[in-house]
């Protein structure tokens, strides 16, 4: 049965309702549609009923038309619904399968906030996703969540997109099909992140997919694909071809990928490339491959020899090029050629030290070379380069040149006691203790210790947060550093911490301390109390003492008075409330009394303090918790 007349009637009736019943008399289209329904009306009583209703409507006076129109429209709707079409002819193809993750029983209240944060917009979303990831990582395995996280790689808020990328990397292989699904090679940042995540998860296994999308990829996506291709050591041939065809940033990506490749052809390419464009050496910065290490060593030596053989003055261009090449010497390069280069620079320290820059001032390439070697040591850790640093230190013992390198190399490879015995004399505790170039030796030793940190998460000491020391740090270092006579700032720029400027010495010392070690706590607590009374910084020192489970009592007043400006009451509350978490109530009461004695609050805060302090003491004595700031504020 052809139902088109019925649909026409419905459309015209709806149009009449939109236009208004006042115009019905002139609605010739509705009349025509009503006429068109006549054959159907004869075939079926229900259509006949509609036709009759239409007739009545068109003949009705204006005041009753509204009701009649809705009557006939309701009826038409009902008939149309019963005539609704079902199904669709044609070959039924199985649904495409892009599934990933798990089907889990997770409720609406658990899942919905996460879905809303991943797919919505506005503030607070990053925190919602972060806490869900920390508390319920299993939610992210859910097949309803995973696609939302993948889509979130294109979030307009970069922090959110980056967080999603990190989550996907941690989930790993199950997300790979989703990253491939609906991939747009000519897309934008979302697609770039997809490639990066895919490459991080799959590593060299990503090559087949990367090759599939390479030809159609454009702009940033192409750069990401080329960079990802560098993960696979078998892609050198393709990358060599791409080096001939790509331009601009895409070629830079090719060079970075080629920097991770090895083999004769790659070495030949780099030899030619560096000869033609020396600045391409930047692409070798992070590379630890044999060709990269050898070529950088050879190039550096050649350039330094050239300036040594010159007139003693290094022009600006040469100086800049050498700095660029030196920066590229980092990244774990420790082939014999590179080690030989460092040995050679040690031998050439005197002639290199005599070179002048284009302004006829000392060029001081030796300290740059020394810093680069130190950076490389911190990056590579124990190994041939570490042994070389020991060797250079052995050869120059008594001089500051390689003391820092020797100290760090020893911490990384030798027993802790031995290292202390060998290097502690360079931290003098009374004068005179060491002969020779005392301040420089002292500074060099401190520079080494400055690079060592206690890492709570792993429970060990690390050189630059990367490689662990061979043994736990000898406690005698802490004792000695608290007794050192020269408390030179360890950091190049002393930090502005809280309301007071003080040296970085104590910051670096605290970096060395394991707060859970009772011996270290016993050494540090009296030292910190003494220092805070000397240099001020009562907030920072108090916090350090709290970290050690100790109290600043006895030093707090003197420390507060060291600061030039009277303090805010809020800062006092911050420190005391932090202390209340680790110290008994009586100790906090004593600290409050010490603050009262100091009487060094802003004038505006004094009235409130006069109420807040006795109130807090009373609360603590009653066994109640330390009040919130809002409780203090309410006392105004």
């Amino acid at each position: 049965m052809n139902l088109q007349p019925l649909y026409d009637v419905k459309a015209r009736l709806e149009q009449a309702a939109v236009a208004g019943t006042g115009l019905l008399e002139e609605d010739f289209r509705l009349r025509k549609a009503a006429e068109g329904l006549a054959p159907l009306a004869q075939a079926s009583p229900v259509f006949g009923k509609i036709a009759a209703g239409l007739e009545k409507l068109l003949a009705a006076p204006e005041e009753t038309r509204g009701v009649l129109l809705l009557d006939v429209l309701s009826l038409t709707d009902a008939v149309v619904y019963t005539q609704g079409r079902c199904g669709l002819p044609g070959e039924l193809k199985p649904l495409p399968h892009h599934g990933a993750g798990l089907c889990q029983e997770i409720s609406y209240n658990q899942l919905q906030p996460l879905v809303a944060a991943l797919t919505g917009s506005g503030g607070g979303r990053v925190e919602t996703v972060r806490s869900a990831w920390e508390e319920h990582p299993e939610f992210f395995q859910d097949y309803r969540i995973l696609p939302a996280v993948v889509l979130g790689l294109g979030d307009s808020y970069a922090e959110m997109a980056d967080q999603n990328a990190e989550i996907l990397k941690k989930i790993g292989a199950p997300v790979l099909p989703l990253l491939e699904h609906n991939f747009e090679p000519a897309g934008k940042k979302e697609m770039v992140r997809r490639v990066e995540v895919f490459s991080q998860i799959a590593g060299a296994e990503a090559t087949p997919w990367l090759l599939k999308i390479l030809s159609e990829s454009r702009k940033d996506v192409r750069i990401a694909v080329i960079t990802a291709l560098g993960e696979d050591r078998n892609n050198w041939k393709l990358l060599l071809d791409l080096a001939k065809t790509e331009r601009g940033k895409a070629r830079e990506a090719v060079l970075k990928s080629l920097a991770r490749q090895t083999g004769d052809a790659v070495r030949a390419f780099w030899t030619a490339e560096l000869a033609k464009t020396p600045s391409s050496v930047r692409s070798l910065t992070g590379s630890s491959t044999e060709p990269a290490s050898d070529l950088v060593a050879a190039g550096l030596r050649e350039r330094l020899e050239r300036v040594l053989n010159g007139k003693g003055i290094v022009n600006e261009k040469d100086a800049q090029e050498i700095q660029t090449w030196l920066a590229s010497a980092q990244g774990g390069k420790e082939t014999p050629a590179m080690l030989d280069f460092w040995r050679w620079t040690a031998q050439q320290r005197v002639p290199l030290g005599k070179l002048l820059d284009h302004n006829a001032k000392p060029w001081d390439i030796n300290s740059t070379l020394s810093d680069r070697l130190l950076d490389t040591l911190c990056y590579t850790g124990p190994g041939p380069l570490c042994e070389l640093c020991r060797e250079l230190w052995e050869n120059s013992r008594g001089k500051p040149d390689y003391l820092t390198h020797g100290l760090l190399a020893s911490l990384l490879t030798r027993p802790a006691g031995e290292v202390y015995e060998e290097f502690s004399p360079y931290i003098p505790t009374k004068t005179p203790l060491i002969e020779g170039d005392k301040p420089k030796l002292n500074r060099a030793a401190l520079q080494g210790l400055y690079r060592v940190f206690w890492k709570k998460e792993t429970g060990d000491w690390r050189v630059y947060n990367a490689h662990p020391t061979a043994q736990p740090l000898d406690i005698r270092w802490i004792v000695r550093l608290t007794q050192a006579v020269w408390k030179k700032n360890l950091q190049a720029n002393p930090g502005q911490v809280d309301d007071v400027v003080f040296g970085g010495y104590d910051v670096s010392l605290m970096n060395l301390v394991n707060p859970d070690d009772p011996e270290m706590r016993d050494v540090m607590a009296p030292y910190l109390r003494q220092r805070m009374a000397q240099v001020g910084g009562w907030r920072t020192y108090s916090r350090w003492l709290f970290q050690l489970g100790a109290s600043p009592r006895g030093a707090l007043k003197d420390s507060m008075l060291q600061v030039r400006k009277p303090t805010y009451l809020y800062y006092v509350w911050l420190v005391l409330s932090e202390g209340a978490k680790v110290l008994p109530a009586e100790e906090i009461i004593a600290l409050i009394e010490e603050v009262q004695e100091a009487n060094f609050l802003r004038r505006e805060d004094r009235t409130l303090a006069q109420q807040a302090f006795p109130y807090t003491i009373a609360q603590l004595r009653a066994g109640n918790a330390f009040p919130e700031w809002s409780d203090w504020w309410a006392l105004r």
Partner: protein
Amino acid sequence: MELTEQAILLQAPNPAAAENGRKLSRKGSFSGHARSEDGTLYWAACAGSGKTPYRTSLDFSAPGDPVCRCSCPSRQFPCKHALGLMFEILAKKSFQVEEIPADIAEKRAKKAAQVEKKQARATTPKKVNTAALKKKIARQLEGLDMARKMADDLLRSGVGSLAGSSAQSFDKLAKDLGSCYLTGPQADFTRMALAVREMQQNPSQADLCCAQALRTLIHLHAVIKKSQTLLQEQLDTGNYTNNDTILFEALGGVWKLEDLRALGAVRPARLVQLSFDVSFDEAKKEFIERGWWLDMDSGRIDETRNLRPAKALKYVKGDDSRFGLFQVPELFTYPGEGNCRIRWETAETRPLTPEEQAALPALAQPNLAAAVKAGKNQLKNTLMPSFLATLVPIGQLGRVGETFLLEDPAGSRIVLRDRVEDGENHASVLRLTLLPEPVPAGSALFGLLFYDETDQFICLHPYSIVTPERIIRLLF
């Protein structure tokens, strides 16, 4: 009562309270764990910010309806301490068997007396105040006249003229209808006011708004027409029984449990939730939390509906997805056709056995044709919802071109499509391609049958897939 993580989350007034309770349990805030010998009462002390710890107890003497007690001053119920104690039980912490403390025993006795009193009240026949009812009906008729006049005026000038009219006039009428005990038509006129505002703010959406307003008008017309007849008849005959149950709800009537009990709409049931969703009714300014339930004995699909006004969101406890089998001793079914609203006071839950799970797909409609026939019957009734929740057997899921289809074992097909009215947060069709595993043979699909005006197709909006092993929720 078997305490599961899900059961704890359902007790929580909000997800944050549950998480806070979990944290209390994790960080070891509880001490003095004790329980009664029969295992119906658990209690412990929980360290808070005060000097003395809070005394928290859980009373499981009424199965499925635990009573939480705590000495903390929180106004949240249950508080995080009670929820934390639930997590302690879930974590199988050691509870010493002890005598029930006197104060809790006293409270238990009081509670039992209250329950008895409530039951006695429920069996007492309700007095009908006929004078008040007459007055109410007369007022309703007045309101219906007002609504009719407004609808006629609107149709005379045309729905297209809405953009030029004042939303406030519809708001005012809606308010007046509210005072005439006509909350159903009141919501319809608020919808009209919303359509007017949308048209004025977003002229490009005018056609869509007109179509929506017309649908509302048709619904309103049916309500007015049928209600006027019914109410007049009630006034004339003096018989005030709610014979037309659909109209009673369409006018804004609210069923009370004692009414339902009086109607005999109470029975025991075994239920499984197939899906859960939340939507927001802009006109009524309330969140609608719907649970779709399959009766394991009759195969009926009914819905629970938890209405949470936006203004009182934190005072009305939210519902959530529920898993496992619910054994309900007293299931109240609201009058109506199609998917009825259901409700219960207490229920016991347990995981479905593999046999029970395997039996679920067999509760689907015998074939697609039967489901569509039932759907069409509902759709043609203007006063009924414009969809029917149904469970249909899956022969095959697939695509013809870009259209997703379900083919039943007999070879009949239906288009799978998201219902636009439900919004983007209900989109589920594409999730069929993201399922981590293929749909096994002998499965069924649960969803909403609806008519799509755009191409005159009867479609199915998929909500869940019921396999012999599990229920895969495409939504929540």
